[in-house]
């Protein structure tokens, strides 16, 4: 049908209408998944922001800022602190034996605070506020999944001294609540202050230090220190008695060597119920986090309603689909698609028809990176300016980093109103770009 204009989006057959019921079922299943978590009462720790943080202001985003080496751990990382021998031996004991031993712990904690405080940041988005920790001098920041909620969102990273820098969210894993952020602003001389990530998982009984910004960033207050011990180890959760509260989400849990062993995530009803994402969840998920993928959906959302978005309108003629409109700020515009481009390939698969392209796009995962091969009419050669036709068409391979359909898209309003079970992430305002 000529003039046919449609979004490339995954139209699931029943998603739009049964949204609300599905949400309820999904949340119940999630609560039942972890017995201890249910007993303790699950709670996210991001602070909801009612006002809007001014992220919309002009942003100078370096081109292809998101092409990051997938190496784990990042090479340009700081070195861990050594633990002197008398203390190291005593730490293996389940309970400290004397006040002298606590004095030794205290001396080590002071060193860790000195090392880790400059790298503990506040992560600020238009609708949520959390913490984070810089783990590479190039500006990779670990945070919690429910702080950034989605990949590709513009945000501010605030150092403890109050200076703010622009950043973007990369991958998010809502199943374990992990998230990655990249500072896109130019790094200071010598790179960003960073601390190392631990190679070994924390053990029950280990002394741990919690940093972060409880109750949000407070001017003139350095990230408050909390000290505790690892209480329990579950598959995707570390629980400690280092106390947390809203705003701490995404902040680092450190061992006595000053290495990140976990990221703050949730609290329960008892003062000793503080839950963290173990560092191994980041290590295992690293390629997806760096690529900027989203695993699972935010709390209270319907996974079936999650649809990829390219951001173009298409028409088709006898030879196949043609781009008729590119929406500003969309993944397509970002990748450089132009009106009049003919789509001839999608992830190495040749495209013959609009229907085929729509089908392939519908099968894509939101936030996946797709190679789109387009044929673009060449520029008219200057010496043959009077020719009617343009020069020979050129083929371009463009990388499109998909997003997903806005939760507040007209017609989906009833669906998003069903997501009341979210914790600190009820509003999914697409950030102005």
């Amino acid at each position, binding site marked *: 049908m000529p003039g046919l204009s449609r979004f490339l989006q995954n139209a699931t057959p029943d998603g739009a209408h049964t949204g609300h019921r599905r949400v309820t079922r999904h949340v119940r299943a999630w609560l039942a998944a972890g017995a201890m978590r249910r007993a303790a009462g699950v709670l996210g720790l991001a602070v909801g922001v009612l006002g809007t943080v001014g992220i919309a202001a002009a942003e100078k985003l370096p081109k292809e800022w998101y092409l990051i080496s997938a190496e784990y751990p990042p090479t340009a990382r700081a070195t861990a602190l050594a633990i002197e021998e008398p203390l190291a031996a005593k730490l293996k004991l389940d309970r400290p034996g004397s*006040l002298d031993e606590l004095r030794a712990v205290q001396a080590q904690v002071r060193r860790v605070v000195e090392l880790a405080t400059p790298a503990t940041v506040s992560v600020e988005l238009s609708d949520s506020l959390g913490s984070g920790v810089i783990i590479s001098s190039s500006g990779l920041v670990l945070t919690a999944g429910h702080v950034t909620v989605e990949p590709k969102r513009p945000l501010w990273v605030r150092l403890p001294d109050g200076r703010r820098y622009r950043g973007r969210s990369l991958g998010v894993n809502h199943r374990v609540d992990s998230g990655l952020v990249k500072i896109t602003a130019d790094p200071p001389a010598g790179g960003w202050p960073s601390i190392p990530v631990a190679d070994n998982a924390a053990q029950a009984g280990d002394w741990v230090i919690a940093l972060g910004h409880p109750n949000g960033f407070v001017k003139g207050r350095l990230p408050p220190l909390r000290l505790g011990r690892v209480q329990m180890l*579950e598959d995707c959760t570390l629980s400690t008695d280092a106390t947390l509260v809203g705003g701490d989400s995404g902040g680092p849990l450190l061992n006595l060597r000053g290495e990140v062993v976990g990221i703050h995530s949730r609290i329960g009803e008892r003062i000793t119920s503080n839950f963290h994402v173990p560092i191994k969840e980041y290590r295992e998920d690293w390629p997806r986090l760096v690529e900027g993928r989203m695993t699972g959906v935010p709390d209270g959302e319907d996974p079936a309603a999650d649809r990829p978005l390219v951001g173009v309108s298409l028409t088709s003629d006898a030879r196949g689909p043609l781009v008729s409109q590119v929406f500003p700020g969309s993944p397509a515009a970002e990748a450089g698609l132009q009106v009049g481009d003919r789509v001839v390939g999608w992830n190495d698969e040749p495209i013959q028809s609009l229907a085929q392209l729509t089908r392939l796009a519908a099968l894509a995962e939101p936030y996946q990176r797709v190679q789109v091969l387009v044929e673009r009419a060449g520029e008219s050669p200057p010496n043959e300016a009077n020719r009617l036709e343009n020069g020979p068409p050129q083929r371009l391979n463009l990388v499109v980093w998909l997003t997903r359909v806005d939760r507040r898209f007209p017609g989906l309003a009833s669906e998003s109103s069903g997501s009341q079970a979210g914790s600190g992430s009820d509003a999914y305002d697409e950030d102005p770009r």
Partner: protein
Amino acid sequence: MNLRTNKWATWWRGWLSVAALCAVLGQPTVVVGQMLDDDEIITPDLGDMQDALRDVFDRVWAPRRRYADSPHMRSLFREVVTDAARAIVQVRVGGRQVALGTVVGPDGWILTKASALGLEDSPRCRLADGTVHSARVVGVDRDFDLAMLKIEATRLVALELSSAAVRVDRLVAMRTDSTTEDASSDTASGREPTSAEQGPARDKTESQPDPMAESPRVDVSREQLPRVGDWVATVGRGRDPLAVGVVSVTPRPITARPGYLGVRLSNQPTDGTGVRVEDAVQGGGASDAGVLAGDVIRAVNGRMTNTIEALKEAIAARSPGDAIDLEIVRGEKVLQLRAILAAWDLNQAERRALYQNRLGGQLSDRRFGFPTVLQHDTALAPKDCGGPVVDTEGRLVGINIARAGRTESYALPAEVVASRLVDLMSGKLAPLTFAEPLSTESPSK
């Protein structure tokens, strides 16, 4: 609510322990089964089995001793708090403990958290020896939320915050009035007592709790001020501290939040005598204090409030949880009423934040607006504010003044408290007295 939760948690923990036991018992069976398949008999390695057993337990159960604030951890601080504990009193209002008090003068001077007293003029103090005394409030510093109580007693064990030592050194000593001179001279010399010097003295006080006994003295110089990460123990009335934690943030000011009296004011002029109350909001501080519609508020904390602006200013200077003294003209009578300010209605985000901050324990009502506090992560009960916190050397770090959030407790730094003592004791900050609550003098017109 709390009770139900605890039961629920216990129930789960119980079942998980059973599950863990089953898992542990099940493991050797599996191992044995494999061995039979191989037609070999291997003795299971005891070390491996212990490790496996511990791994399973680490997934389902955390022993109490693993808490950073476990009874065992507190007992490690026994040697540095035992002496100070003798200077701690229980401050009681209506038969219940509302705060701790710290004896700062041997002849009955007790420092405590002012707002914890509420509307009470004569709280009761239970001393370390178990005797209960009626106390007078002789000074109130609303900025720091400190109150000085006075009981009729002598030769009490007192924690000295020598104000003279603040400039150079800070003296923290257990003493009775007879040793005052010695203590000050030691401070001036800036001498660090050795453990040998402290040892015998401590043994002596432990074996015979005699207030007259010579007590250890510790000097604190500026360089030894607490740093982030330092252990702090909250001294209670027992031999072990009430709780232990670490310093989270070095001293800083805490932003004030305006208090809320709960009155609607009339715009009608009242001949410059005060501000007329149109309505006292049900359940608000004014209504609880007995303010009625039609009353004229003439003064707040002794300051005239002729205009609405002056009244608003006087109230906004105080924080939620603070008590304010109102002078009210009702018809021909002048009344003195004391009201406790409430917090403003919270918006959705603030309610959510408050909910999270209350998970795990109650907060102090008066927790905003301090000129300077040291933040530590001790899980402190609001009723345990007013007592001292000490470091691993037994040096006084400060006086607990508020439980402010799930992750934070506030202590007034020792030198700050010391600098307030003279004003609190001298009567300069004496509260208005209500000897005759309903005085019948006619208003001056």
